């Protein structure tokens, strides 16, 4: 059986192929009212085709922008592929985006129709309707509580019905539409949340997405039996690759959990075979294990420690297969039976044989932890502007601290003058929507994409990321320091959720540190320290001391100029609503520096 789609040049094309070759295989699953419901490839393709036909009936055509504003669910990907099949352009909006941001995105993109999840999301678009002259339709997936008499509003089900009525044969229709698509045309706008400035709409073409699909196929050897859980925001390019691009390329099953609060439970039920996490997710899982184990009885703790020690040395040898000894396989088997099987089942990673970390740099300790318990997490590097296609760590040649080698269809080099990482290839984006100036700054005349990251390339092509160019700290003494390395080291502690290192043009380094409420709260209870809120807990001297000890131990790993001289604990949890972190949990450094300017100045006086 061939598992690969031959010569596909758009995602709808691959969908059509899947629907023809394996129409009755499961493509998507969704937990609904407590039960997992399956959708086959044929249903998937027919519904996408119905969406395309329905939008056509509404007078929407190639090049028009249609937004999807929902959490991850089958309707998201069905709508996206329907929009793309029509030749229209999908604009993803983060479910957490507040009204002001939604208004900006809809207005900047000139969106003609929004597919909104429910009352909450449709209200955001309807509130701003007066300032959105292009907006003609608000299409609601879950219409409970929504005023359907409103001229702008209709249901997603009605859109599909409209499409089904207009079409004699949905599959033939889809085939015709796929035929008519120009691979070089824009398929989607991905607004980059950006840690600074207003969001920019990166235009990705059908060809960009298929190039990413080919790379993924070769890199990870994914096949129809594989299962993933779709849980990171789908408007982010990384989750789009997992839930759509690689899924269509490889034919695996995409599972959608109940909602954002049930992630841990959903993961346990799905037990995916392939998993993508952002550093925050890996860190949180590791913290959960560390804390749970510290609560266990002495026997379990002893067993855990022994297995971790044995597992760690095996893991190190697994990074270079030539060093792997037959005895290691036995050790792996024993540790798995004793501890790691149960532990991985609890995490939801029991079947996970391939895993990726991306979207931000991660501390080596975290990666090592997962390799030790037998989950081979490798780092990938990329950004929206190259459809996340730059480098990935080869599973059989892991060098922790690097982000690996260039993926098959990507050229990579370092700018001699600035040290900036440049990439070139079929996955390089088309440009920023309605922003030629920014586009020209990003793609040079030779087609090289300027990533804005500083890196070093080893002789055998391994890339090491130094930092974001604009984040590099130059101290008053003139030393160049990469804050993210120190920050990630600080975040290795289960008690530390966020760390931001400060020190640009200053005499010494300081840090803003946010504690992890769950774990520090737990610790406080055990030590009989009463507290009420996050702010109260952060202000406790005992908590400051707890974090202080950790900061001191991290300092020992760094050179004198790179040590944190003073730190403060943040009085509140950072969240996306107030613009302190992006939707993938990356801290917005500038916003934080402004907001906590007083605290920062306090550390330098």
């Amino acid at each position, binding site marked *: 059986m061939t598992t690969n789609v031959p010569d596909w040049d758009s995602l709808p094309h691959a969908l059509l192929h899947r629907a023809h070759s394996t129409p009755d295989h499961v493509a998507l699953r969704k937990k609904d*009212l*407590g*039960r997992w419901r399956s959708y086959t490839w044929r249903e998937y393709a027919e519904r996408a085709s119905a969406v395309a036909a329905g939008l056509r009936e509404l007078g929407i055509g190639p090049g028009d922008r249609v937004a999807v504003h929902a959490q991850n669910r089958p309707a998201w990907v069905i709508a996206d592929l329907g929009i793309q099949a029509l030749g229209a352009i999908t604009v993803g909006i983060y479910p957490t985006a507040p009204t002001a941001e939604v208004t900006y995105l809809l207005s900047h993109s000139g969106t003609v129709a929004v597919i909104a999840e429910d009352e909450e999301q449709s209200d955001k678009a309807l509130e701003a309707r007066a300032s959105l002259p292009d907006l003609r339709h608000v299409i609601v997936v879950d219409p*409970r*509580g929504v005023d359907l008499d409103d001229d702008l509003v209709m249901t997603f089900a009605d859109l599909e019905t409209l499409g089904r009525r207009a079409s004699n044969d949905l599959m033939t229709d889809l085939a015709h539409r796929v035929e008519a698509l120009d691979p070089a045309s824009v398929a989607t706008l991905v607004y980059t949340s950006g840690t600074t400035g207003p969001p920019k709409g990166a235009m990705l073409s059908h060809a960009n997405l298929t190039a990413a699909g080919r790379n993924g196929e070769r890199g990870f050897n994914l096949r129809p039996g594989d299962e993933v859980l779709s849980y990171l925001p789908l408007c982010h390019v990384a989750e789009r690759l997992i839930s759509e691009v690689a899924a269509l390329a490889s034919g695996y099953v995409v599972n959608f959990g*109940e*909602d954002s*609060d*049930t992630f841990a*439970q959903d993961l346990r039920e799905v037990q995916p075979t392939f998993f993508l996490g952002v550093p925050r997710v890996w860190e949180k899982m590791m913290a959960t294990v560390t804390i749970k184990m510290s609560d266990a009885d002495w026997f379990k703790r002893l067993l855990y420690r022994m297995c971790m020690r044995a597992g760690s040395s095996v893991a190190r040898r697994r990074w270079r297969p030539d060093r792997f000894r037959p005895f290691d396989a036995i050790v792996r088997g024993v540790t798995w039976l004793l501890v790691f099987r149960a532990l991985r089942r609890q995490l939801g990673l029991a079947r996970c044989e391939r895993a990726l970390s991306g979207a931000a740099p991660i501390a080596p300790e975290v990666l090592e932890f997962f390799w030790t318990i037998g989950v081979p997490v490798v780092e990938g590097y990329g950004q929206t502007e190259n459809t996340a296609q730059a480098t990935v760590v080869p599973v059989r040649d892991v060098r922790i601290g690097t982000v690996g080698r260039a993926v098959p269809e990507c050229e990579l080099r370092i700018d001699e003058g600035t040290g900036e990482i440049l990439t070139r290839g079929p996955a390089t984006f088309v440009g920023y929507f309605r922003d030629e100036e920014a586009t020209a700054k990003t793609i040079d005349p030779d087609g090289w994409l300027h990533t804005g990251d500083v890196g070093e390339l080893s002789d055998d092509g391994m890339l090491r990321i130094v930092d974001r160019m604009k984040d590099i700290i130059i101290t008053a003494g003139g030393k160049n320091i990469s804050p993210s390395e120190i920050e990630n080291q600080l975040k290795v502690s289960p008690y530390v959720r966020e760390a931001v290192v400060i020190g640009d043009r200053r005499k010494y380094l300081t840090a803003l540190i946010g504690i992890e409420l769950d774990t520090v709260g737990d610790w406080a209870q055990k030590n009989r320290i009463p507290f009420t809120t996050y702010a109260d807990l952060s202000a406790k001297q005992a908590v400051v001391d707890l974090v202080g000890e950790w900061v001191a131990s991290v300092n020992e790993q760094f050179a004198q100029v790179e040590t944190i001289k003073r730190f403060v604990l943040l009085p509140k949890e950072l969240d996306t609503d107030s613009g302190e972190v992006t939707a993938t949990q990356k801290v917005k450094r500038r916003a934080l520096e402004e907001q906590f300017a007083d605290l920062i100045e306090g550390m330098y006086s």
Partner: protein
Amino acid sequence: MGNEAVATPLLEVRDLTLAFGGVRTLNGVSFDVGRGELLAVIGPNGAGKTSIFNCLSGVYRPESGSIRLDGNQLVGMRPPKVAQLGMGRTFQNLGLFTHLDVVDNLLLGRHHLMRTGYLSGALWVGRAKREELAHREAVEKVIDLLALTPYRRSPVGLLPYGVQKRIELGRALSMEPKLLLLDEPVAGMNLEETEDMARYLVELRTLMGISMILVEHDMRLVMDLADRVMALDFGTPLATGTPTEVQQDPAVIAAYLGGAA
């Protein structure tokens, strides 16, 4: 005909009187609740608010007066029968089984709707199986509506108080009531939990059209949600009307502030 049915109120209470020994807790209380209406009952402690609920749900038998729900006379009926006729109730101090999980607590709320006998229930065949699946689905809809999905299989006793109050509401909703009696649904909650609860109550009304009687001390919640308010003092209605009317009523002000009217 249709219009007439809509015009008759869902609940008609006339001249309700209740006394314990010599103490009159209710003294000729009369009111109506329309279909889809939310009536709030306010009053100081001991005004008789909970006594009204106990009479309505059949726990107390009033000395005199009548209670008609959808045309059925309830006075003298025992609580299970009253529940079957469509009276749902939440308790101020929570009426949950703390060792059971959320699903089982909600399923218990549907006990009076279950028809299967012990034997077929135990064997889980034929009708029993179909029935259980249907009940489970109804419960899942309530879980979805009240965003209880993360707690589905957690023992209720381990959950935060605000969540328990929501489960309490869910248990009452699982009964598929025509009229829901809410006894201080936000008592002891923080501001965020209170706002969440208010949103759920609004949703219940707009999505399901359930009529409700709300007893609550949180005046902001009462004034925001209620269609009409009835103010009680010493078992006697002081005033009934829109929230604004009742707030400005001199008798109500006097009872609450203790000033001479």
